[in-house]
């Protein structure tokens, strides 16, 4: 078979954006392989999700009604069974936290070649994916061998599918062992507390470039002189130098201030996901190749320990 199977993702009642991106990526692959695009949606309100996923380019939607929220045991078993039924050439999933909690297990049990975190595809006789290495410093193309492959795609790299499709929707019956050993017991919101950085108009954000915790005082002085709100990239919070509610990025807050001043932040994709909607982005970084400059409107290639003291002086 030359079909493609995409597995949608949802959380707490809503499809996640990447689900529509999976439809686009899946359609791209199905056009290349000359097959149909199947979309699987597992758990939760599958009827509603199937309706929402019925966008242009989708040929079949398979629903599996088992449980409410993502659970890797349910997903792995459901996808394994669907794969056996459909025998798709390519299985495409999200390179998300939940995607990475079931995709490798599915690839293992079905003996599929696995390429994760794809940012692009080429398809000639077989699949070739584009992916990054060394923290986005290089891009690579990787030939994915084998005749049955699995790929996870990075979010926001493919546009969301739109339009209304005429997919055939059907419930897929599968016996799922719900006693496989992992139980999701709840969710917890993190990052509450004294300040909501997503409300700020002007954010000064600090990253690894600050080097030492003591040096944060310099940034605090700038924040005070300019009446800004302080945030950071992940490593600063990982180090315990700032609380979780100050973290901007995929696992932290999404911010859209008038001005986002990124100091000593390289601009990893996970960070950019949290701030690219800012009206104006300014970057100060020693590395002229830092990806933060790709999305910055203004920049200084220079040493923050020289530039920031001068900047403070401007406002004192």
């Amino acid at each position, binding site marked *: 078979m030359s079909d493609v199977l995409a597995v949608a993702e949802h*959380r707490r009642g809503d499809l996640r954006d990447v689900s529509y991106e999976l439809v686009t990526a899946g359609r791209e692959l199905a056009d290349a392989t000359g097959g149909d695009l199947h979309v699987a949606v597992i758990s939760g309100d599958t009827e509603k999700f199937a309706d929402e996923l019925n966008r242009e380019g989708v040929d079949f939607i398979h629903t599996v009604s088992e449980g409410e929220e*993502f659970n*890797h045991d349910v997903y792995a078993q459901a996808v394994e069974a669907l794969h056996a039924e459909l025998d798709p050439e390519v299985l495409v999933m999200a390179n*998300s*936290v*939940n995607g*990475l*909690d079931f*995709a*490798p*297990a599915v*690839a293992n049990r079905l003996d599929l*070649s*696995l390429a*994760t*975190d794809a940012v692009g595809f080429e398809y000639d006789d077989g699949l070739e994916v584009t992916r990054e*290495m*060394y*923290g*986005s*410093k*290089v*891009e*690579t*193309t*990787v*030939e994915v061998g084998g005749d049955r492959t699995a790929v996870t795609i990075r979010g926001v790299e493919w546009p969301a599918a739109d339009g209304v499709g005429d997919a055939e929707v059907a419930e897929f019956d599968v016996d799922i062992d719900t006693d496989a*050993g*992992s139980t*999701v017991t*709840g*969710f*917890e*919101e993190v*990052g509450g507390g004294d300040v909501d950085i997503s409300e700020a*108009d002007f954010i000064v954000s600090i990253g690894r470039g600050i080097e030492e915790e003591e040096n944060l005082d310099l940034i605090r002085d700038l924040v005070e002189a*300019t009446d800004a709100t302080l945030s950071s990239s*992940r490593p600063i919070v*990982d180090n315990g130098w700032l609380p979780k509610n100050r973290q901007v990025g*995929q*696992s*932290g*807050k999404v911010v859209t201030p*008038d*001005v986002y*001043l990124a100091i000593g932040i390289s601009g990893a994709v996970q960070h950019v996901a949290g701030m690219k909607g800012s009206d*104006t982005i300014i970057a100060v970084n*020693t590395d002229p*190749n830092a990806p933060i*400059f*790709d999305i*910055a409107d*203004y920049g*200084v290639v220079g040493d923050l320990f020289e*530039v920031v*003291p*001068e*900047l403070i002086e*401007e*406002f004192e």
Partner: protein
Amino acid sequence: MKVLVTVKEVAEVADDFEIAGTEVDERYLEYDLNEWDDYAVEEAVQLKEDGPADEVVTVTIGPERADETIRMALAKGADRAVRVWDDALEDVDLLDVETKTNMLAAVVEEEDPDLVLSGVQAGDDAFGATGVSLADHLGFQWGAVVNALDYDHEAGVAHVHRELEGGVEELTDIELPAVLTIQTGINEPRYASLRGIRQAQSKEIAPKTLNDVGLDADAVESDLTLTSMYEPESESDAELFEGDAGETAGRLAEVLREKGVAE
């Protein structure tokens, strides 16, 4: 209980570098303990210090050069190490997840741990998939992207938080034996003490070949082939301010005033 930690030595690339063929030129690489694995080692060592773990063993896929990195993990408190490598791997430029799974699984089966901790991903190839693949291969339970771990020794259950996107954590109970992939920030990795570094010198690093762990060369045939490597084209259209620190700060201040966010 016995805890196994997967430890990878990763290459870090200098700010300025050159690519030769499908590799970054060796001159621009520095080798270090994978950042995520540092947190996994710390979590394992804490499990030993807090009581539940009797022994912490690290397992590494890598050439002899990696011993230096493995010593760092031993200096931080791991008891001993296993390192698997083979001449058959020298020419493979991208080990796929299945290959790593096969190699690590062979060691896990020999060591028979209750819990395997692995970093969420490696800083170099960043597949982020080996831990979960390994679990499924072994018939272990698993949890990906764990940023809090509370182990209930009596029940043999790990109560974990999985760090989802957007500031939400999933609370999950996972039955052992299990593989957990550990996210940065779960703890504060220690620096090795001088005493630890001294002790590490006499700890065992057992080198093993594929044959030693019961695998043949077929088990390491990678499905993935690296066909090209290049520097991504800069999409930057940023206006870069030049000059000394005073001048650039002056221009930045102008922008901030123009946008009306600072006076």
